[in-house]
């Protein structure tokens, strides 16, 4: 690996925005919006948060993944005027589901180069529906079609024709591997997965913008179960791919996120609480078949690289956000990145330590199941949550000991990992 090069000029996040995560066909707050309007909603919130206007932005990076459901490419052209950024330099970029985390590194590089100062990063995806010919009407997207086109991110020459199936490959296999590696029975793993879901849904109901509106006990109750554990084992929670259950999987949704990044030395002009981008790293890997299902190179290398650039060790992490499309990854990546003790990390979930009221908070917005997964917007949503926590603004779900160092990890399909280390200025 090449030596890490420090940027010539630091970069800080001075404004964040995020829409409701839901379905633009029905969810209050985003219902009836087109893709452009959804992106603008998050972008303008970020601008307002920073006290800036479009004229103050020097360049913009827009991320979006699903062209087939958005009926969109050239996001920069199609959205520049909506954003008040016509004639400004802008690009579309994409690293699948890690897109708007990768944007933080792009913004930092843009500022570090000296070329531009104030950068707007936007992530947006509309995947539950697609446009009809008479705008702004849309119709629901068939799930089979959605996943068929999402699989264009996987190796179509070899891997996909070989029986490619995401739930076994990305959910079941790491769960089985963890259980076998550390001597847990599958019954014990199921209890761990139950506790992870309890935590993410409990957190999600504390975030008004989250997709999930009922914690697990409430959901269970609504379907006639007074005991959430009984509900967990019921017909309502079948295996997506044994031993991974349906509730352990992501909730795909529509949404947009945005953040404004400025030079670190100017950040205090825009906010009293700048959040510095201390380090970032990425890795690309073709497919899911790495040597060790619970220690993928594509994740480990960017954690190491981002920590090295930021000059931190894992024990300094106060808040961790990992890409938990499959909730098993809260455990697997929690250990891989050094936040949880290797081989013992599952206990943190059994002991209820990973919520915003715990000492090992992870994904306090509910993660990809609770907050929801809006593909290209999710990295920005995770950064939004980290920034809110670090500013002490995560109302209702604030981590008591306000995080000084946060690490945000996202995994793009199939695969790209982006890791960004954020630091509170006065910490």
């Amino acid at each position, binding site marked *: 690996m090449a030596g890490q090069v420090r940027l010539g000029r630091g970069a800080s996040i001075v404004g964040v925005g995020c829409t409701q995560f839901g379905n633009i066909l029905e969810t209050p707050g985003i219902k009836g919006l087109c893709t452009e309007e959804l992106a603008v909603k998050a972008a303008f919130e970020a601008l307002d948060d920073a006290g800036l206007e479009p004229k103050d932005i020097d360049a913009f990076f827009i991320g979006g993944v699903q062209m087939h459901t958005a009926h969109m490419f050239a996001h920069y052209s199609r959205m520049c005027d909506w954003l008040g950024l016509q004639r400004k330099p802008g690009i579309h970029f994409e690293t699948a589901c890690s897109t708007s985390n990768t944007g933080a590194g792009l913004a930092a590089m843009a500022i570090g180069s000296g070329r531009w100062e104030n950068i707007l990063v936007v992530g947006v995806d509309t995947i539950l529906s697609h446009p009809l010919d008479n705008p702004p009407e849309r119709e629901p997207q068939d799930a*089979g*079609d959605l*996943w*068929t086109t999402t*699989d264009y991110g996987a190796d179509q*020459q*070899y*891997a*996909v*024709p*070989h*029986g*490619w*199936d*995401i*739930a*076994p*490959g990305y*959910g*079941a*296999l790491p769960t*089985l*591997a963890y*259980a*076998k590696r550390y001597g847990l029975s*599958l019954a014990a793993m199921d209890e761990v997965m139950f506790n992870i879901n309890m935590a993410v849904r409990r957190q999600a109901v504390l975030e008004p913008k989250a997709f999930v509106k009922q914690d697990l006990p409430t959901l269970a109750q609504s379907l006639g179960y007074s005991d959430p554990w009984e509900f967990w084992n019921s017909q309502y929670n*079948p*295996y*997506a*791919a*044994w*031993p*991974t259950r349906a509730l352990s999987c992501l909730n795909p949704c529509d949404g947009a996120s945005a953040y404004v990044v400025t030079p670190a030395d100017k950040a205090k002009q825009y906010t009293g609480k700048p959040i510095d981008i201390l380090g970032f790293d990425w890795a690309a890997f*073709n*497919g*899911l*078949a*790495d*040597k060790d*299902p619970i220690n993928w190179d594509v994740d480990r290398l960017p954690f190491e690289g981002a920590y090295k650039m930021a000059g931190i060790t894992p024990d300094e992490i106060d808040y961790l956000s990992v890409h938990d499309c499959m909730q098993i990854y809260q455990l697997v990546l929690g250990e891989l990145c050094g936040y949880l003790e290797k081989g013992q990390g599952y206990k943190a979930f059994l002991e209820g330590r990973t919520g915003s009221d715990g000492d090992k908070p992870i994904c306090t917005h509910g993660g990809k199941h609770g907050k929801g997964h809006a593909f290209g917007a999710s990295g920005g949503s995770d950064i939004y949550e980290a920034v809110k926590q670090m500013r002490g603004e995560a109302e209702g779900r604030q981590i008591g000991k306000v995080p000084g160092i946060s690490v945000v990890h996202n995994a793009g399909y199939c695969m790209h990992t982006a890791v960004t280390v954020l630091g509170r200025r006065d910490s």
Partner: protein
Amino acid sequence: MCADSIVRKFYDALEEGTILGTKCGECGAYNFPPKTACTECGSRSVEFVELSGKGELQFYSSGNLPPLRFAEYAPYAYGLVKMEEGPMWLTMIKGVEVRDTDRMTEFLAELPCAVSAKIEEVAGTKIVTFEVA
């Protein structure tokens, strides 16, 4: 490597019952399936080799909502194989339980286990599946 499509050569070879990978001239690693560079060290000095078809099944599962293209094959086992020469591969697994989760749980204790390649046509394409011995 030749100017012709490596992908085409791979699938043509499967029609003849041959499983092609590559061997790296620099680091010695075997890669599967064949590409234009070594997946371990990145060297472009890779040459086609025929692989033995022997491997070890690491883990497998069975999805309850498989992709549309494999709908008629559901339920099927999908698992991770470590091939004898080193490469890892995810593919359909034959000869294992896919419905009875109690039996699947018991079988987990026997993994990894020996498997051998079985070239089969699936959804119109010849692919390399692995079968439990």
